[in-house]
């Protein structure tokens, strides 16, 4: 048996690996970036929304699997997860963040940490800290082989879903009335109010969208990786936040670029150095990028108080 790959195959395969990982980061980073763009809040609960999405997807699929097996069931479960998490994100916004919009920025930040801990500990208590496993009965290894490179069907679906969502979101923000309102609120909330834009409604919609995207990532992670645990949102939350900053926080294409870049750097770092050094490699380079471009790759420079 020959297992070894040629040099180019290894590099390409690591590229595929990095793209998959980066897609997850990008989907979560979008929510961070949208919320920060519009109300300048680092929504620490975002990683937990992602985790909730994974749990809802797993639970709904457990109920549905008898009726709707395979891909139909998976699609329905992910949609259910997106709806649930969107509502959860909206509720957090309505009852925890909105009353504090006029308060000092730090209060809002601490509230976000509070919301994060509430969700995290609730799920921990419900699941008794035990991991849950997702089994769909589908053939995980089935896919396309080009030379030594393997791309499974699940990976292809994942990449295309992520790409469609990102393109859709860019179009939505760029060319619809609501998208225009979002961009306007990001620039100047008070003026928007004077111009007759329902600011609260648009902010609510931003949370709905961002949370739905995080839940989409969570649901896909549940299907793709197969295990779901209460603390799964922590690491990806931090990495997605990093991705959003690298791309230029507040910028939608920036969040995608940052996510994909971070995923690729981690994969290449694992190959070139070692898995224990991959974060050192990836984050070292990211620090370098930030030194050269303090506002991120696609961020605009503006004078900002934190």
């Amino acid at each position: 048996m020959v297992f070894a790959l040629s040099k180019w195959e290894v590099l390409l395969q690591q590229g595929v690996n990095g793209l998959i990982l980066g897609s997850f980061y990008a989907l979560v980073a979008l929510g961070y970036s949208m919320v920060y763009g519009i109300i300048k809040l680092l929504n620490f609960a975002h990683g937990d929304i992602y985790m909730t999405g994974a749990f809802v997807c797993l639970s709904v699929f457990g109920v549905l699997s008898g009726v709707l097996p395979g891909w139909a069931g998976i699609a329905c479960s992910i949609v259910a997860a997106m709806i649930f998490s969107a509502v959860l994100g909206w509720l957090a916004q309505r009852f925890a963040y909105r009353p504090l919009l006029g308060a000092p920025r730090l209060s809002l930040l601490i509230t976000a940490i509070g919301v994060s801990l509430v969700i995290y500990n609730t799920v921990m208590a419900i699941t008794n800290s035990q991991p849950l496993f997702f089994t769909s009965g589908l053939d995980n290894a089935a896919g396309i082989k080009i030379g030594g490179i393997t791309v499974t069907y699940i990976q292809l679906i994942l990449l295309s879903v992520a790409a469609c969502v990102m393109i859709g979101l860019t179009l939505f923000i760029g060319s619809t009335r609501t998208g225009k309102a979002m961009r306007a609120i990001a620039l100047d909330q008070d003026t928007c109010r004077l111009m007759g834009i329902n600011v609260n409604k648009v902010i609510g919609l931003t949370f709905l969208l961002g949370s739905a995207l995080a839940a989409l990532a969570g649901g896909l992670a549940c299907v793709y990786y197969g295990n779901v645990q209460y603390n799964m949102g922590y690491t990806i939350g931090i990495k997605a936040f990093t991705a959003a900053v690298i791309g230029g926080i507040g910028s939608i294409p920036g969040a995608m670029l940052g996510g994909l870049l971070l995923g690729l750097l981690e994969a290449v770092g694992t190959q070139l150095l070692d898995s224990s050094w991959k974060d050192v490699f990836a984050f070292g380079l990211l620090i370098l990028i930030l030194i050269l471009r303090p506002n991120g790759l696609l961020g605009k420079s503006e004078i900002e108080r934190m």
Partner: protein
Amino acid sequence: MRKHAIRYIAVLAALTLLSSVFAGCGKTSGGTEAEKPITIGVLVPLSGSEAYYGNDMLQSYKLACDEINAAGGVLGRKLALYEADDGCDPNMATQAASKIIAKGVDFVVGGYGSGATIPTLQLFYDEDLLMLVSCANSTDITKLGLNQTFMINSPGTHAVITLTELCKSLGTKKVALIHQGDAYTKNLSDICEKELPKSDIAIAKVQVMEKNTPDVSAIVTAIRNSGADFVYWCGYHADGSNVIKQLRRGGYQGNIAVGDGSASVELISACGSDGEGVYVTSPPFVEFAQGGEKFVADYKAKFNMAPGTYATLCYDTIYLLKEAIEQAGTTETASVRDAVQGAAYQGLSGMIKFTPEREPAVSNFIILQIKDGKFDLVTL
């Protein structure tokens, strides 16, 4: 304040004196030696987070003692157990040990967590009490150099002995190791890295998968590129299923084995079809022991629950002690100690023999393989 302190000390001293007088009474009165039961102190956690395991241990000891008593006892005397709760906590454990010593027992068994067990060992040694440690398996136990303390359970290093045998039988050339960066899994990986090359098995790559970072595809590609034909997962089952699935998905076709941190039936359901053929270096589960069915049935009939992971080790501990006492012909510590040192007892958990350092001479790890959605015992 000082006056109070002195008074307390005085009262304590008086109490200690009194209790030793009573203890002395207990030893002299109460019939002749031959009629008295042989008392075995049991040091196990009966409260706290590890209470389930402590209870399982105690029940296994009871099962063995009841069987032996029903068959006539040892040297014509019955066995009696005296248990004390160590709470799997060093402080509680020393109190429990004092309780056992005050009771005037003949032998001591038990010891679940190494952290709680180690502080008691010197106390038992000072009282010249033989201690058979059934579960705790840190090699720090034998490092104390106490010649009446024996370890029944294999230390983690023994997993590597079993792993080496498996690798040899599969004709393995290059092994890739994956651990999770914490003390336990890193240690296992380090031992493999040191020991496997001694049997001409090369180490291709050592990788780290941090907890809660589910994506290991980059590691999988790096492992494929390294030409490894065997992957050993040193971590726990929650992430292990994920590693196995991604190895198979990423086109890895060689053998996969997982360590005892992943020896759980949950691993099978979590892996699905990708788990087929995966090996496990596992603690001696009773289901796979010879004569295990009878043990499971007896245990269930008596306690109305299934035996736990360490049940066979504890059961074997009592029978080992019985054999040693019979061979010595007395309950005198020094003679029984020598008999235990020279013992070769075939128990449910495997062959029990000791090295001069009083560690198990034979690994009690077994090899399981996932076949048709079940664990199957592999004999090499």
